């Protein structure tokens, strides 16, 4: 697995995460650990109804409760839309906020807020919501591009001028060739409907924010977020402030996975401005389930045709994504990936984003992709089975290569799907596929187009001879360690001699949100350039001090020396001190790097899973897992493998265990971690990570994003393994043991 090349000293050599010790020791500071002087605690009052008119909010009892400072409703805040205004659109919609001297007192008083609701008809099923005459979920806002989706690079093209069915907030259509003609050429045509449940991102740290307003109304916001600049922009836009009047301090993130984008910050900021004291709003687990933005449920109807020789002839699909009470689902990206993974001449894909009276949907690790690939890769296995083709060869034959058109007509940049398939084909586990009774193996592909966002970085040499690398991207995955390794490689330093800091939006260079598998890909090159710039400055300064030409110098182990004359040398620390003291004639060492790549780095993965089925209970257990993934270049192989294992674990959770369940009245029934089943160590087998390296032309040392792909193919791999084990297939995730029993019974 080691990808170390002789020419690299740091890149490709596994290195412990720099943030590991503080997290293991419990000394990392999270939002909830902050207690600025004068801190007030806010507690949300949530709607118990999926859809209702708010007739009256009586705050008088709550206001009189001990320790209460204020009870605020929409009209009390500027702007007014931060809380429900007259109507609630999902159970969990915040209608009021109670602010008190302690968290417990705020919670006590929140129970005393009396809201008179007039329940209205609720629409909970997206397919029902699309029928003519269904109640209107809400008037559609004019502009509804999702920031989170854009941050994930999940904004897909495609025609959007299609007629919208009722309650559809977005329609995306991709067409190519003639699907009817394509189906006519096929030797096998298979049609099926797949369903994926809504799931929560499962971040263990709930959403939380502390906001403080200065007397002039400018704000400091400490928050658990994936994007500090995104949060600043969103809060500024909502509150009508110029960006520079808001300082966002990104805190240690205790899990995000797409869920930690702008949510509570504008509300907390508005409350802090109104009250003139710092305000802490940290959701408890139940409220986090109700208020945060889950991954949407999806229904995908898919029809595909193929010839006996293994070539695909047509793909037709209809996707319905349940976006909850606000637009912003990833239906476009799901449609793009569904039609963009294999070469197929005839395509017709229609994707619908539909509003319902449920918590608004958001992003979760490869938004839209797990749903799309569950359908696509289940279908590919079916076709292979029907045509008696080897499932891997069948995929290999049709897999997209660099330059092939995506459904939106744009060509794929370099990608490693074929290389991943070939690696699996040659892997002993694929060749042998050892299985005990009631066990079976399944494979599946998954991919992610990769996001882009400009980034800048600074690289400062400090008097102790270490580097301080300044970035504006949040570290949610250990990316800071990789960025440190990039700078360390440039300088020939050990990675622990580099600090990567992202203090706040006032002092950091711009960086995009940590999403879309793009932090190392986009910020990495900026860091690399900044380090190279600083290195150049170091060599210039050293050349002057050593009276040698810069090209005759070498930088190694924190020391610059004249090549071949090791006695003529100067340390980095000496150079830093020289350039940072009173009266010095040398400018300080401070490198800059900035970059705006044009080409994304698609990340593809191929998974091979073994399951064991209990034929009497319908239980499915995962007993073996191999994840092959093209990572461009593994900067820190241990970290990459760790991310792959985490992604697979989340995929297993989504496939076997997790599901947000709403009742007929729109109440979320499993808004806690006892009923909502995140996978535990017992549910996840040993996962073997196999790294393929097809360098990304624009990536730092060839690296590409690795975060999202490993969560994507899992469901289909497990569905295919179940069919291999017991001869029946499940078209709905999570798999229910009951459903598998039923299917086995029907199959006899």
């Amino acid at each position, binding site marked *: 697995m080691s990808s170390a090349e002789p020419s690299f000293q740091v890149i490709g050599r596994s290195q412990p995460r720099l943030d590991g010790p503080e997290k293991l020791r419990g000394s990392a500071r999270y939002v909830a650990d902050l207690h600025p002087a004068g801190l007030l605690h806010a507690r949300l009052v949530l709607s118990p109804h999926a859809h209702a008119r708010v007739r009256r909010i009586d705050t008088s009892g709550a206001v009189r409760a001990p320790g209460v400072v204020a009870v605020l409703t929409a009209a009390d805040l500027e702007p007014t839309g931060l809380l429900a205004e007259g109507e609630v659109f999902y159970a969990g919609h915040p209608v009021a906020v109670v602010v008190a001297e302690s968290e417990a007192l705020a919670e*006590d008083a929140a129970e005393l807020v009396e809201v008179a609701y007039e329940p209205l008809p609720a629409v909970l099923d997206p397919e029902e919501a699309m029928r003519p005459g269904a109640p209107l979920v809400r008037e559609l806002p004019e502009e509804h591009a999702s920031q989170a989706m854009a941050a994930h690079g999940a904004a897909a093209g495609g025609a959007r001028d299609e007629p919208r069915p009722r309650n559809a907030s977005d329609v995306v259509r991709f067409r190519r060739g003639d699907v009817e003609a394509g189906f006519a050429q096929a030797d096998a045509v298979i049609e099926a409907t797949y369903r994926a449940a809504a799931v929560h991102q499962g971040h263990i740290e709930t959403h939380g924010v502390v906001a403080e307003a200065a007397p002039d109304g400018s704000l400091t916001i400490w928050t658990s977020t994936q994007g500090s600049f995104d949060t600043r922009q969103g809060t500024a836009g909502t509150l009508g402030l110029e960006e520079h009047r808001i300082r966002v301090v990104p805190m240690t993130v205790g899990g995000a996975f797409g869920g930690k984008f702008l949510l509570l910050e504008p509300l907390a900021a508005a409350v802090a401005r109104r009250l003139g004291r710092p305000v802490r709003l940290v959701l408890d687990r139940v409220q986090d389930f109700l208020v945060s933005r889950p991954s949407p449920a999806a229904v995908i109807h898919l029809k595909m045709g193929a010839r006996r020789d293994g070539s695909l002839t047509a793909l037709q699909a209809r996707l319905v994504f349940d976006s909850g009470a606000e637009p912003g689902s990833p239906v476009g990206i799901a449609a793009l990936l569904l039609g963009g993974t294999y070469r197929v001449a005839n395509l017709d894909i229609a994707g619908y984003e539909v509003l319902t009276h449920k918590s608004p949907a958001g992003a979760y690790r490869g938004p839209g992709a797990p749903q799309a690939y569950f359908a696509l890769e289940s279908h590919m296995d079916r076709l292979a089975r029907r045509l008696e083709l080897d499932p891997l060869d069948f995929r290999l034959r049709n897999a997209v290569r660099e330059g092939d058109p995506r459904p939106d007509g744009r060509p794929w940049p370099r990608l490693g799907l074929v290389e991943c398939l070939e690696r699996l084909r040659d892997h002993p586990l694929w060749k042998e596929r050892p299985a005990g009774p009631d066990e079976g193996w399944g494979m599946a592909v998954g991919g992610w187009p990769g996001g882009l966002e400009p980034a800048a970085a600074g690289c400062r040499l400090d008097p102790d001879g270490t580097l301080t690398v300044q970035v504006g991207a949040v570290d949610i995955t250990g990316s800071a360690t990789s960025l440190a390794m990039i700078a360390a490689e440039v300088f020939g330093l050990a990675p622990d001699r580099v600090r990567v800091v992202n203090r706040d939006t006032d002092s950091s260079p711009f960086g995009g949100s940590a999403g879309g598998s793009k932090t190392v890909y986009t910020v990495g090159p900026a860091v690399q350039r900044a380090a190279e710039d600083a290195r150049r400055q170091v060599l210039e300064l050293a050349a002057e001090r050593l009276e040698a030409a810069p090209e005759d110098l070498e930088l190694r182990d924190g020391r610059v020396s004249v090549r071949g004359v090791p006695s003529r040398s100067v340390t980095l620390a000496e150079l830093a001190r020289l350039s940072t003291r009173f009266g010095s004639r040398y400018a300080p060492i401070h490198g800059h790097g900035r970059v705006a790549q044009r080409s994304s780095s698609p990340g593809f993965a191929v998974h091979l899973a073994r399951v064991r089925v209990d034929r009497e209970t319908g239980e499915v257990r995962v007993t073996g897992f191999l994840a092959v993934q093209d990572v461009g270049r593994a900067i820190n192989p241990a970290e990459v493998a760790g991310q792959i294992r985490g992604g697979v674990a989340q995929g297993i959770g989504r496939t076997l265990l997790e599901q947000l369940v709403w009742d007929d009245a729109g109440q979320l029934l499993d808004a806690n971690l*006892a009923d909502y*089943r995140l996978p535990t160590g017992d549910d996840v087998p040993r996962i073997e990570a196999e790294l393929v390296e097809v360098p990304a032309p624009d990536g730092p040392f060839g690296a590409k994003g690795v975060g999202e792909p490993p969560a994507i193919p899992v469901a289909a791999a497990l569905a295919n393994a179940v069919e291999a084990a017991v001869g029946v297939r499940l078209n709905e995730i999570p798999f229910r043991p009951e459903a598998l029993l039923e299917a086995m019974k029907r199959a006899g």
Partner: protein
Amino acid sequence: MKPPRFAYAAPESLEEALELLKEHGSEAKVLAGGQSLMPMLNLRLLKPAILVDINRLPGRDRIDEAEGMLRVGLLVRHRQAERSPLVRQSLPLLAEAVRQIGHPQIRNRGTLCGSVAHADPAAELPAVLAALGGQVVLRSAGGRRVLPADQFFLGFLTTALEPEEVVEELRLPVAPPRTGAAFLEFSRRAGDFALVGVAAQLAFDAAGRIAAAGLALTGVGGTPFKAASAEALLRGQAPSARLFAEAAERVREEVDPEADIHASAEYRRHLAQVLTRRALEAAWRRAGLEAA
């Protein structure tokens, strides 16, 4: 997620604790391991005026054996029972059941008497008590009473425990020689409350016939389900796969579980059958008499 305001007392003796319960009645809640009580407080499902913390009571964490009964004291933690050689030796069914309660963190704090007092319909111990015909010793300032399991568990989270009483002790008959037992449960995820669990114990006579059968299920109703007619069917019979299948079929017919978000009633019924058969087979196997 903060509990509502409550008063707190930490008595140093059982007598003192019982006086507090007498004084406060249904306004008081007893805090032992807190593994059910604390979440219920934090979710504000309960709002007691006072918590009586009994964790400081001395000498109440004993497991011993007397007159053919295993006695489990007021403050015995699950983990302690799980690790007890005495429990493993004299009542393997209890040892196996306790191992399946929650996670190690829960077992380190939770108490057996507390679990029985809470009477969650998916909990393991009520089924063990029901299967074995165990007894629950209730203690108040006014005295002590001993109830058999079927008179103690009354309904969903409802028992015969009076507000001024604590569960002072559990009494479970020690397994006779030539016995095999199994506690099997099914949950979607390890450590979760079982969808269905089965406690089975089979004692065999010298001829290898079933001398006594204890069989009860959890997760199929508000109280543990004592499978009396299946027990009767088994008693006196020579063990066989067919017999166990028949007993399991009878259990399937007689249980009346409810549906929830985790499983339908029909699926629970099906699990009751599968797990009963498997538990009886395992109990037979573990008795080591198959050759006979």
